[in-house]
């Protein structure tokens, strides 16, 4: 029984939150890694692209809510999501046209692209603040829980409860669907293969008649879609604040690099590695230990690092990977 209780505590406080967070990071890292693979730079504006997409989705959600449209138990934001994706896609396509294309034609050094992306980050950050302000927004409606703590206790008779929030379930389901769709696109369609070919060998792709601008446009649209979905899911799960999306940039980069920049499968693995390490290292294990070793009285909370340092975890993972395997665990583009 105690082992079961320990397991429930583990699931409730570590596994489920980390899985949902990992899925959000993975979606974000997929966008970063795709842009890296095709356009060959680390896009610092990606966090703010997520914020922008989420902000538009929230505005549309409010509009739908005021019209009395809802999705029942599911958050209305799901209905608003396509609008958010469309708006974000238009924004990033416009950005590419005005900013990045110039440097692409010039064949500028990657670091110039990175710097331009910082400028874009500023502008997008301002736009998001302009649209929705700097305050925290909650926009999750519908049923809050799939399983509540009380239901779970009654169902199982265990001492410990387990809560499974709708947003967590949604995050996981949507992430699986999106990843499946993305891989189907990349591996099964001619356009998707053309993207991979371009990422593999730009010159040969040109020789084969692949239109680079079309590939770049597709990449931006997909990245906008991934960013908006990741941004909305993160916002639903943890509430929306523009500054959070600047802070999430570091874990996302860490995830993409751990998986090997330019490698989509790696980005997903990286997202979960970062999320599980972060949650596991900042979680106080004393309760789990209490069930597993009833006779042991640990002095403290058995927490390796305070939650205020959770971003340090992604940084340390990043450093370790850069030290020992700079191309990432799953072989990304060359250093």
């Amino acid at each position, binding site marked *: 029984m105690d082992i079961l209780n320990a397991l429930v505590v583990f699931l409730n406080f570590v596994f489920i939150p980390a899985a949902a967070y990992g899925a959000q990071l993975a979606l974000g890292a997929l966008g970063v890694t795709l842009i890296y693979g095709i356009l060959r730079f680390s896009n610092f504006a990606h966090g703010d692209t997520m914020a922008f997409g989420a902000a538009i989705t929230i505005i549309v959600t409010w509009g739908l809510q005021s019209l009395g449209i809802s999705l029942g138990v599911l958050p209305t934001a799901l209905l608003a999501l396509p609008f958010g994706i469309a708006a974000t896609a238009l924004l990033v396509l416009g950005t590419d046209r005005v900013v990045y294309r110039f440097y692409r034609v010039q064949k500028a050094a990657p670091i110039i692209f990175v710097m331009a992306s910082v400028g874009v980050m500023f502008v997008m950050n301002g736009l998001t603040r302009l649209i929705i302000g700097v305050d925290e927004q909650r926009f999750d409606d519908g049923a809050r829980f799939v399983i509540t703590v009380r239901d779970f206790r009654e169902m199982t008779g265990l001492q410990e409860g387990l809560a499974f929030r709708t947003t967590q379930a949604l995050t996981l389901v949507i992430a699986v669907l999106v990843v499946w769709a993305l891989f189907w696109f990349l591996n099964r369609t001619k356009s998707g293969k053309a993207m991979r070919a371009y990422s593999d*060998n730009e010159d040969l*792709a040109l020789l084969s008649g*692949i239109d680079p601008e079309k590939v770049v446009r597709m990449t931006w649209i997909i990245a906008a879609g991934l960013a908006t979905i990741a941004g909305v899911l993160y916002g639903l799960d943890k509430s929306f604040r523009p500054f959070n999306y600047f802070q999430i940039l570091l874990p996302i980069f860490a995830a993409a690099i751990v998986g090997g920049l330019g490698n989509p499968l790696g980005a997903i693995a990286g997202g979960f590695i970062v999320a599980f390490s972060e949650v596991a290292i900042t979680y106080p294990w004393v309760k789990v230990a209490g069930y597993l070793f009833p006779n042991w009285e640990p002095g403290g909370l058995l927490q390796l690092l305070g939650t205020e340092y959770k971003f340090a975890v992604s940084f340390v993972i990043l450093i370790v990977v850069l030290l020992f395997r700079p191309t990432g665990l799953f072989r990304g583009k060359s250093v």
Partner: protein
Amino acid sequence: MSQVQTQAAPATQAKEPYLSATAMRGGYGKADILHGCTLQVDMGQIAVIVGPNGAGKSTAMKAVFGMLPLREGSVKLDGEDIIKLSPQERVYKGMGFVPQVHNIFPTMTVEENLEMGAFIRKDDIKDTIEQVYHLFPAVAEKRKQAAGELSGGQRQQVAVGRALMTRPRLLMLDEPTAGVSPIVMDELFDRIIEIARTGISILMVEQNARQALEIADIGYVLVQGTNRYTDTGEALMADPEVRRTFLGG
């Protein structure tokens, strides 16, 4: 073997060579690399460009393919002037090009490499893929494997196969045997002969001059961007002057 089908019916003008690049002059920067270089290939012929390092062999081939701006000269394919066309447009006209390095998509499977080769085609490409596999049985077995994981010789086969996917009338190979073992080289040359027998013209640059001239219908010896000797492969091999200066005795 089954015939690799070609895009268009053969040209009717029997006089004019299929590819005729004449008096090409040009270079990357201000200094010219090519000084009036001429290359001609007839239908189904194998033409080989040899010469010392820095003679402009690869540059001449890139000029034919439109990857180098030319200041003078003409490039005609099947009697049509193509000098203004980009490399991509020349692919549509029936040219296929295999670069010396970076000539495959390493993380994609062999089959996907071939599919990408046929990117511009709108029709069914299954037959062409089967023909390529027939030509290169070794890579056919590894069709689901990433091309980057294959051996050097097999990668070259994938690279040639990729270029064949557009059903070119003229296949250009930039040092296809660079860095492969002698056995693999012989094998690759056999395949190239086989391709030429299907009516495809071949233009290739080779470092292994002796072996390449053995299979060449026509050989061009380039020195400092101009033609020094032009003759059949056999005749060049027999010429003591060529042997002494370019083939190492």
